[in-house]
């Protein structure tokens, strides 16, 4: 999709776990691998820390996609946090469907600390996918977003 001669740039929030995916992203960086600049990363200690509310809030604040990335199953630094992330992601996808949000806008990936290449690949793929899906059109978006910002600020 092109508007005003510029390509549409989706906004993606990435919750990356400190031990695997964040390190993997770092590796992609130090290895000078090309990845889309659309991903805005928030570091969490574990993918299990990702509260479903964070994901919903991200969409409300105007994100077009959310990536949750953790260690491979069995490799979690905190033993089983990624399994909890998996369960929450499955639940979230159902919830998003009910809200009328395409469930492909939420993506859960396992990226280990050594998989810089995979990180770059996932980022690029997801960006392309969201580009194809187009911007997220939430009903009464500007007001809702403004309200959400207010609400967060009030907390």
């Amino acid at each position, binding site marked *: 999709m092109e508007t005003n001669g510029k390509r549409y740039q989706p*906004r993606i*929030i990435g919750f990356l776990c400190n*031990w*695997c995916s964040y390190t993997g992203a770092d590796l992609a960086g130090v290895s000078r691998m090309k990845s889309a600049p659309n991903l*805005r990363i*928030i570091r*969490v*200690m*574990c993918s*299990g*820390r*990702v*509260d*479903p*509310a*964070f994901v919903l*809030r*991200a969409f409300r*604040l*105007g*994100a077009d996609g959310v990536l949750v990335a953790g260690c491979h199953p*069995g*490799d979690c*630094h*905190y*033993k*089983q*946090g990624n399994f*909890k992330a998996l369960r*929450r992601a499955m639940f979230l996808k159902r919830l998003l469907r009910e809200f009328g949000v395409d469930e492909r806008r939420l993506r859960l990936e396992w990226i*280990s*600390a*050594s*998989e810089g290449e995979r990180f770059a690949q996932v980022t690029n793929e997801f960006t392309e996918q969201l580009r194809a899906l187009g911007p997220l059109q939430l009903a009464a978006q500007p007001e809702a977003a403004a309200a959400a*910002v207010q609400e*967060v*600020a009030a*907390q």
Partner: protein
Amino acid sequence: MEMISLKIDGKPTQVQDGTSILAAARPLGARIPALCYHPLLKPFGACRVCVVESRGTAGFELVTACNTPCAEGMDILTDSPHVLAARRVVLELMRARWPNVSILKELAAEAGLTTPRFGSPKKDENPEACILCLRCVRVCEEVVGACAIGYEDRGMRRRVVTPFDQPSEACIACGTCTSICPTGHIKLVPEDYRGKPAEFLLGPNTAIYMPTPQAVPKVPRIDADTCIHFKTGGCQACIDVCEPGAIRHEMEDEEIEVEVGQVLVTTGFGLFDASAMASYGYGRLDNVYAALEIERMLNATGPTGGRVLTKDGRTPRAIGIIHCVGSRDENHHRYCSRVCCMYALKFAHLVKERSHAEVYNFYIDMRAFGKGYEEFYSRVMDEGVHVVRGKVAEVVQAAWTGRENGTMLIRCEDTLIGRFREIPVDMVILCNALQPDDQARKVARLFGLSRSPDGFFLERHPKLDPVATTTDGLFVAGCCQGPKDIPDSVAQSSAAAARILATISKGAVEIEPIRAEISEEDCSGCRTCNPLCPYYAIEFLAEKQVSHVNAALCKGCGTCVAACPSGAIAGHGFSDRQINAELEGILAV
């Protein structure tokens, strides 16, 4: 058991029923020579050298002491004129057939014999001739249980043979027959040393062996998979011969649990199986060796005593050393194994010195990276070792001239002169790549270690923290972390040891400030968080009806924070407020 009284050489004695005369007489100091008798074996009575005189009520008779049981009231003479005369004739007949066997010479001299009066149609002048005592056949059957040798034919034509006179597949190359042979007729020839695993990679395999010639502690071990005792429950010959009584077959593997605060993982590397590169002929062509096999061959305590020999025992005229077998190869391992260039040059130096062969090194890039390494490279070049820059295409069996066997051609491109070359060699040495150990995946799972894409364990930071891992108290050193040579392994493990000692001497552990804390006021006591914690850090305070986080056990993963329905858990460093503010910030534009 019933005791029996008898007299031996006039001395009264008492023995258990069933004891042979020989066993009863020897402790009393009687000199009864014997050839076919051996304490480990059942008596056989073949050599007749052990004859003694037994005086009974019906006169006297000559009996073989080894297989005649003692009987009540026997009167045995071991050196009467009858005995000596009979023994002399037996020995004289044996000497007529085997005149040069030293044990027969000694016994004959003892019996006062010089030259035998008789001739023999089957005279054998070999000083190590087989005298048909058949100790070897019997020990192989009764003690070892392998039944690898037997005898054929009868009388003058009797021979000790393997079945059908072919190399015996039942033979476990234990060497018992060699050691029990009184004349040295049987020899253990280290001929086919490939294919028999022990002595690291070359050399014969026995059930009880030294792990390596330089093993520390220098104590033999029993291989339960090949030990006859563990197969049949019999044998235990080692117990009979071990005077200090150090052998105990009933010992079992035991698992010992040790409580530790820190772990250093130094599980080492595995070796690339060179037979995966079929074009190099490893395992298919006789004189293609892997690096560690050559290392054994060059060792003075190795199977060839340090000599460089082809499989048929010749000194090679030309040797090819192929670098980067399985490493720096898109089809196998992309990384450089790091140590191969230098040990390949060491091999070049040693095999040239010992065999005076022409030595060719086939390399991609020569990586003499360490202190003094480049100088060694120059020295080896000065010694006249040839180096060919180019990856070897294949090793083929081909005669140099005429109809030779076991010679090969190395076909490769010499990229420096830009030409295809075929180089004839007698021996090929493959420098196979270092690779992660087969068990690395299991070890990684056990300790929660990460592995890099090549499969080696991942350090915390390649430059700033090369010995620690992402888990506190867990360190890595040596080739399990990546290919490296001995100096580098020593340096890395010393660093790890220092890190471990630093924590021990401090006596206290610093924990991360990132952890969860439950606000008692907000906690509803629903206990949702309790089973979520992988470290069992959350306890439920029954009297206050709230959950509580043990700060020392909490690792700060935040799983409980995300799950708390009343938002009572604060994840320090990653609180809801902080993350929401981050979200707001990065989505503001």
